[in-house]
């Protein structure tokens, strides 16, 4: 592999741009696809691989090609730089999520409390509009504060996010659903929200709650449908 190729792959990754890495297994030639200059059948194979998120070896024109789908990593947008977020950010990062922390309150969302984290000190609905969650993004609200959680969920419900979760008791959640329904969301749309958030593993401490949330995220992405 050329260092130039490696750097191009890293660039695509940090820009969340999907690319396919293609490697000719007989002569070692390598390409980033799709590429207008590349043969049509290779571009087709790359597009199919990216759509299916499948990596593997294909025979293309009598040659063996390794085609790797490099879709952007799954992303987790957290609303609320609260105590549970301090356990959730490292655990989600370890699990392979790119984590974005949203909290307009700089007393909570700051590098002292979250060293190295990507933090947006913006109102949650504005942040969600900017971040535009797609099918590889999950949104979890953690503040318990309707002023922050509700606008985030209201906006996230209009997106293709694969998972929406809201921290809070059953009672809190029922009240939240009623408020969101008043904003015009149908019961079917509202059923997309996992609340209370997380798999029921009897979690008590912040790290345990973080674990239950990650477990539910993994189960939603990979578990039996």
């Amino acid at each position: 592999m050329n260092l130039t190729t490696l750097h191009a792959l890293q660039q695509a990754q940090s820009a969340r741009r999907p690319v396919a890495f293609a490697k000719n297994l007989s002569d070692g030639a390598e390409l980033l696809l799709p590429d207008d200059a590349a043969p049509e059948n290779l571009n087709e194979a790359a597009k199919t691989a990216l759509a299916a998120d499948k990596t593997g070896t294909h025979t293309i024109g009598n040659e063996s090609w390794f085609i790797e789908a490099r879709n952007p990593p799954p992303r987790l947008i957290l609303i609320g730089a609260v105590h549970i977020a301090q356990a959730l950010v490292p655990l989600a990062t370890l699990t392979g999520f790119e984590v974005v922390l949203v909290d307009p309150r700089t007393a909570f969302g700051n590098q002292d409390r979250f060293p190295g984290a990507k933090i947006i000190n913006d109102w949650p609905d504005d942040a969600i509009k900017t971040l535009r969650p797609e099918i590889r993004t999950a949104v979890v609200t953690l503040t318990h504060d309707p002023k922050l959680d509700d606008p985030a969920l209201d906006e996230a419900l209009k997106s293709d996010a694969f998972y929406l979760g809201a921290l809070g008791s059953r009672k809190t959640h029922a009240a939240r659903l009623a408020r969101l329904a008043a904003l015009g969301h149908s019961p079917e749309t509202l059923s997309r929200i996992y609340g209370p958030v997380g798999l029921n593993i009897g979690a008590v401490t912040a790290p345990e709650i973080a674990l239950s949330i990650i477990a539910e995220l993994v189960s939603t992405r990979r578990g039996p449908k």
Partner: protein
Amino acid sequence: MDNAEDIFATAAAWAAEGETVAIATVTETWGSSPRPAGSRMAITKSGRIAGSVSGGCIEGAVADAAQSVMQTHAPKLLDFGVTNEMAWEVGLACGGKVKVFVEPLT
């Protein structure tokens, strides 16, 4: 792409330090192989290793092959699995099969 571990970043950092680096990639799997196609390992001539291409059963053999690839500069496609025990001394305990492409980082 779901690998939390960023082998490319590690390989780039090692290359920047002046190390000679090889990259091993799982290109194809059959049966119950532990790591999916696209899993990677980076190996340096000085013996540093990052990442994995199996549950730990073939990393040693891949690292050995990487050393010879770094000498000859010729990429190799390795075959591991129950039906290939004669070709390679290492098999996969799980009964799966994998192909691993080993190449120098140039």
